[in-house]
């Protein structure tokens, strides 16, 4: 069984931003995570695309304000493609 979507996002964010898993929450965003700069934002998008085998549109990328928004977006996308 694949782990829940947020757990997978959490793992990726913890690695990329070099913070413990428990500090990664749906409210995590560039505002409250130090290492989340524009380069890491691109890396996050690329990591999610690779992990979930999808491609985000430019509009979708604009929606990615925090990890909670990313989770909802992924749920929608994966639901549609399922």
């Amino acid at each position: 069984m694949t782990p829940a979507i947020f757990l997978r996002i959490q793992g990726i964010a913890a690695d990329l931003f070099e913070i413990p898993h428990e500090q990664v929450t749906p409210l995590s965003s560039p505002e409250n995570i130090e290492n989340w700069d524009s380069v890491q934002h691109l890396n996050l998008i690329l990591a999610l695309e690779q992990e979930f085998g999808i491609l985000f549109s430019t509009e979708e990328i604009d929606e990615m304000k925090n990890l909670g928004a990313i989770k909802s977006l992924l749920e929608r996308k994966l639901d549609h493609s399922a």
Partner: protein
Amino acid sequence: VVSSDLRKTIDGLIGTGAAEAASRSLTELWRREASPATAQFLITSYNTIREHLSLRSFRLAILRSFTVEPAVPLLRAAAFTAGIDLTVHVGDFNAYAQEILDADGRVFRFAPDVVILAVQTCDIAPDLWRGYADLTPQGSAAAATRVMTGFCDWVRAFRKRSQASLVLHTLEQPARSSMGVLDGQSSHGQSSAILQINHELRRLAEKHNGVYVLDYDALVARHGRVCWRDEGKWLTARMPIAAGHLIHLAQEWLRFLVPLSGKISKALVVDLDNTLWKGVIGEDGIAGIQIGPEYPGAAYQALQRAILDLYQRGIILAICSKNNQEDAMEALRNHPGMILRPNHFAAMRINWGDKAQNLREIAAGLNIGTDALAFLDDNPVEREQVRMALPEVNIIELPDDPLGFADTLRDQLAFERLTLSEEDRQRGSYYAAQDQRLELLEQVTSKEDFYRSLEQEAEISPVAPATLSRVAQLTRKTNQFNLTTQRYEEQQIAELAKLADWQVVSMRVRDRYGDNGLVGVAITHQAGTVCEIDTFLMSCRVIGRTVETAFLSCLVEQARERGARLVRGWFFPTNKNAPAKNFYSDHGFELVTQNEKGSLWELSMSAANVNCPDWVRLIVHGGVKK
């Protein structure tokens, strides 16, 4: 083990200070999931253990016309697993031309070992990309000329400013041609124009030392042009490569960094049963094993072909197999499906002994370190045992399906080479002759008799264009008989040889069994009456045959002719160069001083001399540069 468990294991190993074991597990993790997140995890982990590992430090500058930043952590992570601690400088966006031309700029101050010039067709030649349909044949030719003039100028300017290696990306073809299928009907079309530029890039690289071509177009084609490109990210973030393919660009870069940094395997040791052929020779017999053009024997023939390609590239081959020697030799000699034959192997250990011990003996017999060995065996248990006993050996992980064996071997970074000298081509036969020399040593009684019976000839010449590549290669690869372990790139050697007060000489050794090739290098610097030995090294092929004395006697004599009264040189100890430790004291040099880096030795030429052994015939070319 799922990856999250593996990560816990890694954290545990790092916590207890087991750096080598942690590094192996990190490599395993990377093999399973090479992703941006894993890359960051590897970099963070390696940063805490790097001091305890023998990693090669290497500096790379990437000059580019597009966003490469996301590929950099992938590259650094992959480099760590290949034993390279990479520091990366990324040039400003689309500023590659200014950066190359700016002699005092940040790129050159960064002092890179290698520079990659990653420029896209759509940036450097927009008219050959989207605008092609507007061009006349003359316009197309003019555009190609303009691009090549740019590259020629940059390479020339780069060489004036830096001795670093330079890797040029070729230009990619568009996934969809401007002219549709019409493009294929003309020999002057869009595709031809880009092909022509890529061909010219190769010719440009051939003309300059230390300039190499990375076939970016072939890389993109290998993975599929349509899938490779992500137009959305290109337009919004100037990052043209789809998420899943960035790793392939990083891997391609690493194929150049591994040979350039010298983290290579010199010899490949192979198993026999179910590796070179399907079946067990001792049970199935020569009629029962499968190796031939039909499936499943074809998978093993494909692997043998890949191994033979490595042999032609100068990789030494050896066998380590649990078998009765006669059974195995019968298959090697007589099976019609074999591509590899006994003469391709420089050493064979076919017995029932422990493989790790056999590998140690193979390395000792070839005069190379066990860390220069790669090991190919279908049996994961054997691989694990060797890994436990000899963690420095490069263990090749084979897939379960033999159809994947050949490609796995071809993808090994440690066998990549960027130049192929005549030496490399002949290496296999040199080692076959070495076996006969060792047999002779067993027959003769005294060492002196042995030296005499070898009928050795040492030919000493100043470095020349034809030997430049081999001389530089020896400085990078020689670890054992190497007094200072100074590493040089081809172009650095070329520069040194041009200077009036520097001397770069090479030694070729022949004997009754044949030519050993170019096996010695010495670099000296003369200031007034003092000649300092910067580099003195010899290939392991000729260690223990007194030719080093012959070589030194010639250096001393040439220094004398230039007016030297003192010859001095440092010995810098490493983990590997114990064979050279007593070189200066054995030849009458006096210890001058010693510090934490090494010891300085001196020969006063009025008080002592170095004589060439009378059993080595010395041939000296080129006279003395004054």
